């Protein structure tokens, strides 16, 4: 039996404040003006048959099944394309309509294979449903005439879904979903009349076309034409569990459809607060890693990193780890150990890890992967606006008039938001892209940036200052807003600073590489926008001046009055699913949950009372500081939950040297990742499908993570942390993550109102959620800033010390690709490798020609930190003098090249600027050869353990 479908009212809802009253089948109905007759009827309980209509897409009016009769109207109008009118009298069920609908269905069915019993969507097919609804009992035309049953081959090229043209009814829903929902325009209808068929690109296969495999077409298909291969293989699911994606910071809500404990498919939830029924290739399809054969599901220990792993019980592993931590603290001091929380784990789990460090280890040596991505956001927004978080919800972009995207690549890194943004641009909003590289948003179907400020990497601060200079000196300041809402003296000092000639676009053009006129035009556009919104990513934060740029962005938003209402704001696009949450939960070494400094005695007293311990008032070590302390011999033990610091942190050889000095590294993860190869204890992690909890996305939206299957290793991550705390002699008594959230809420003002009951009721909640905002806060800083008055900060441009020279004449910058996710531990273990199975170096044709490099050549990339070898992609996406790569494969060694330069305020690494030389090369680098040997050795050390288990 198939799962019940979500209600589908056929056409989108309307927001109009004006309502219209009409009669449908004799019943009075009142709906917002602009609503279709179809939707009005559906909402009043008179569902009208339909095929080409679905409420995620604009009405199309092609299937002719939704005909109705309307008093005073000739013929039988399509209810999907007919808006309601006051006093309208509609009939949805009459003998004539029944006859017409049967005739329409008869035509459809005469050209549709009647293999329902063996069809993968049997029982979950709208065509089948409609045949039943209209009472089709015969097909007078027979099935021997011309048809499409055998005419076309199935397209099986996409690894995740199949396209069977024989089952297509040409309703256009897939084509429209690709256009309206995803915004890729990869699909079309080729041919005319009877020859009409859905076609990816120019009659290409799905894989050869522009298709990004978001699954919107599959979702929209009313038949089995586009079907998930997992459904074809496994059959339909038995139950559905609503949960939250564990990939990027968009935090899409999904219905995990499950048979037994096996996921059959992940369907984006229509009522998902962040995604509203859309998804991307990662969340929709790339979940197979959760049950990949590489999963390690038994705890392991070993005395040294060159010794074979020994499989042990949970108790033995935890006792060993606790014993080692205690031994180290007794020998080297209380501060010789620490922990790292994971942005891929839940809020409750990160809360527990920082609690373990603070309460059981007795220090503040806890940090999180936000250190290497958005720690400057935390610092910069706290300084200026008063809260370490983005100001809007995602839907806000639909009210923006001008959107600035700086150092972010939403269509790759945050695809569902990228689609929403493209929708708004298609509606007429203007786009300004500030990026060294021509990201897809600069020019893609029906989207073109009004300005692409193609600056040189490392010059962000000069750019924001030049934009600010233009705004201030050309009289574009929102004077009344600034006077009312911002600190006067700080604003005046800032105004004087940015007005200086050295900050003008003309003066900074030599630094940024962007013509002054282009900067001025962009500044005028943003400042005169009406609603101007800024979205930014790691291209802003991962610099030696990351925090300065974040403050500069906040300055721009304040000076133009663009904070505190829908459609505007400062919006960090967070990298991982729970980066916001892990920061909220006190994962930084200087802050307790809720961004309260450890030196604050009142806050400390609150937690000391709740935890029954004394909390160290001194800040702890950040991740890069931990490496330095390890190298100087004062930091010897670490508990790492769900982060692969050896692959993801910069200057790999430096990190490896630090890891080699550690006496007890406890890694809790799904796989034997690069960090685990330096570990002494391996605790099996649990995927997001195996536990309960919450994630908080980039818009501060707290959403439930729900257990879909039991933990493969017997313990969810939160349970493993509890057991480790217990072994350390600090028992924490929680029987369910909801109790952990209750404690978080009790101790954290911005979470006071959050609990699982409310999450069940509302689906998701955006913090702050407390007495002042019991329903949560979609838009922050309305009427005033969290810190009271907004504070303009001075943002001097200080060039990075990572300079190009004759020896290292190019700048390397790094980024992500759509199909892979960060260090790739998850996506590399899925069919997503069909799109991207190696990291490549993008190089401009001019630089390539200078070096004799052709497409696909192996090239060595050398920096002051190290050397690696990749294949080259020659492309004009990058500008001359700049090269680019991704970091999804450990053997690529992207971070062998990056240096340990970091942001002045937060130590966030300067991944985006590394001076390099690129040259033709014949063999892997020394590091890569060493890596291959070590990988083989470490997997060899795992083998005996695996064999024993068998």
């Amino acid at each position, binding site marked *: 039996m198939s799962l019940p479908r979500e209600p589908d009212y056929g056409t989108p809802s309307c927001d109009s404040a004006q309502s219209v009253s009409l009669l449908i089948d004799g019943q009075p109905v009142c709906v917002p003006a602009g609503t279709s007759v179809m939707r009005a009827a559906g909402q009043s309980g008179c569902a009208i048959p339909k095929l080409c209509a679905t409420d995620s897409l604009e009405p199309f009016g092609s299937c002719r099944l939704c005909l109705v009769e309307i008093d005073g109207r000739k013929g039988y109008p399509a209810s999907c394309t007919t808006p309601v009118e006051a006093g309208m009298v509609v009939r949805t069920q009459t003998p004539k309509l029944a006859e017409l609908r049967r005739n329409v269905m008869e035509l459809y069915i005469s050209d549709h294979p009647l293999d329902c019993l063996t069809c993968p969507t049997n029982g979950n097919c709208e065509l089948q449903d409609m045949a039943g609804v209209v009472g089709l009992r015969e097909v007078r035309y027979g099935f021997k005439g011309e048809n499409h049953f055998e005419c076309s081959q199935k397209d099986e090229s996409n690894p995740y879904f199949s396209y069977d043209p024989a089952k297509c009814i040409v309703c256009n829903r897939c084509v429209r979903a690709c256009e309206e929902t995803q915004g890729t325009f990869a699909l079309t209808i080729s041919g005319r009349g009877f020859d009409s068929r859905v076609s990816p690109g120019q009659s290409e296969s799905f894989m050869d076309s522009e298709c990004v495999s978001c699954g919107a077409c599959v979702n929209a298909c009313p038949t089995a034409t586009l079907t998930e291969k997992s459904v074809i293989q496994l059959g339909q699911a038995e139950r559905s569990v609503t949960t939250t994606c564990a990939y990027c910071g968009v935090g899409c809500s999904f219905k995990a459809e499950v048979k037994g404990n096996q996921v059959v498919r992940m369907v984006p939830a229509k009522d998902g607060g962040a995604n509203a029924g859309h998804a991307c290739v990662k969340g929709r399809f790339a979940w197979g890693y959760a049950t990949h054969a590489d999963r390690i599901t038994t705890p392991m220990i070993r005395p040294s990193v060159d010794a074979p792993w020994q499989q042990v019980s949970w108790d033995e592993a935890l006792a060993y780890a606790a014993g080692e931590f205690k031994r180290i603290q007794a020998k080297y001091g209380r*501060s010789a150990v620490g922990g790292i929380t994971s942005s891929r784990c839940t809020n409750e789990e990160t809360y527990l890890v920082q609690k373990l460090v603070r309460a059981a280890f007795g220090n*503040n*040596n806890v940090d999180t992967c936000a250190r290497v991505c958005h720690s400057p956001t935390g610092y910069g927004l706290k300084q200026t606006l008063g809260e370490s978080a983005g100001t809007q919800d995602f839907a806000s972009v639909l009210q923006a008039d001008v959107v600035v995207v700086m150092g972010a690549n939403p269509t790759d890194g945050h695809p569902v938001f990228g689609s929403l943004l493209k929708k708004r641009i298609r509606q007429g909003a203007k786009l300004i892209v500030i990026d060294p590289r021509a990201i897809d948003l600069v020019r893609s179907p029906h989207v073109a940036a009004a300005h692409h400020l193609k600056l040189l990497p490392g010059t962000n601060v000069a750019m924001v200052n030049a934009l600010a200079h233009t705004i201030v000196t050309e009289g574009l300041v929102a004077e009344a807003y600034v006077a009312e809402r911002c600190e006067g003296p700080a604003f005046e*000092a800032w105004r004087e*600073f940015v007005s200086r000639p050295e900050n003008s676009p003309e003066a900074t053009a030599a630094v940024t590489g962007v013509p002054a006129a282009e900067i001025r035009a962009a500044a005028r556009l943003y400042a005169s926008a009406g609603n101007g919104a800024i979205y930014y990513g790691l291209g802003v934060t991962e610099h*030696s*001046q990351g*925090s*300065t740029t974040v403050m500069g962005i906040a300055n721009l938003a304040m000076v133009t009055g663009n904070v505190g209402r829908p459609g505007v704001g400062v919006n960090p696009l967070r990298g991982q699913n729970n980066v916001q949450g892990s920061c909220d939960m006190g994962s930084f*070494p*200087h802050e307790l949950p809720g961004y309260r*400094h450890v*030196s604050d005695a009142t806050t400390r007293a609150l937690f000391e009372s709740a935890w029954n311990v004394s909390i160290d008032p*001194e*800040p*702890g*070590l*950040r991740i890069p*500081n931990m490496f*330095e*302390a390890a*190298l*100087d011999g*004062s930091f010897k033990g670490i508990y790492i939950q769900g982060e692969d610091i050896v692959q993801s942190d910069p200057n790999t050889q430096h990190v490896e040297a630090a890891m080699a000095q550690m006496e007890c590294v406890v890694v809790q993860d799904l796989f034997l990742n690069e960090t685990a190869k330096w570990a002494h204890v391996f605790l099996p992690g649990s995927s997001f499908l195996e536990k309960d909890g919450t994630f908080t996305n980039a818009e501060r939206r707290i959403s439930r993570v729900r257990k879909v299957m039991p933990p493969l290793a017997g313990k969810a991550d939160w349970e493993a942390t509890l057991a480790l705390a217990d072994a350390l002699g600090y028992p924490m008594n929680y029987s369910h993550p909801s109790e952990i959230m209750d404690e978080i809420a009790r101790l954290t003002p911005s979470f006071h109102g959050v609990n699982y009951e409310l999450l069940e009721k509302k689906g998701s909640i955006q913090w702050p959620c407390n007495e002042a905002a019991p329903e949560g806060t979609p838009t922050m800083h309305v009427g005033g800033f969290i810190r009271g008055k907004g504070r303009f900060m*001075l943002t*001097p441009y*200080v060039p990075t*010390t990572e300079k190009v020279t004759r020896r290292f004449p190019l700048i390397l910058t790094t980024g992500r690709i759509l199909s892979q996710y960060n260090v790739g531990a998850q996506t590399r273990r899925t069919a997503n490798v069909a799109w991207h199975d190696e990291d490549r170096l993008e190089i401009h044709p001019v630089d390539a020609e200078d070096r004799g490099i052709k497409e696909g050549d192996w090239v060595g990339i050398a920096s002051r930190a190290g050397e690696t070898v990749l294949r080259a992609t020659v492309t004009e996406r990058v500008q001359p003098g700049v090269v680019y790569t991704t970091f999804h494969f450990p053997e690529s060694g992207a971070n062998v090249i990056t240096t340990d330069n*970091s942001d*002045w*305020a*937060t*130590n966030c690494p300067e991944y985006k600027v590394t001076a390099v030389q690129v040259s033709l090369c014949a063999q892997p680098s020394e590091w890569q050869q060493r890596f291959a040997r070590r990988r083989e050795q470490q997997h060899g050390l795992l083998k005996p353990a695996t064999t024993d288990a068998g």
Partner: protein
Amino acid sequence: MNTDYVIRMANQIADALGINPDRDQAIHDLADHLNRFWEPRMRASLLAVAGSVDAAARLSPLVREAIARLRPPP
């Protein structure tokens, strides 16, 4: 902790905060930043740098002045 590492980070912070035309405020902000964000052994390393004539010469003047306002590591 590595001397070069500590000197480089302290000077970077001074570069960012030294823009303040009120020098005393800049010194205060720099010391405050170090007290709020630097773990005690990092502050201890910086104090050790300040105690070495050769190493201290590589510190920016602002850092040298801020050191007097550092909270002593416990």
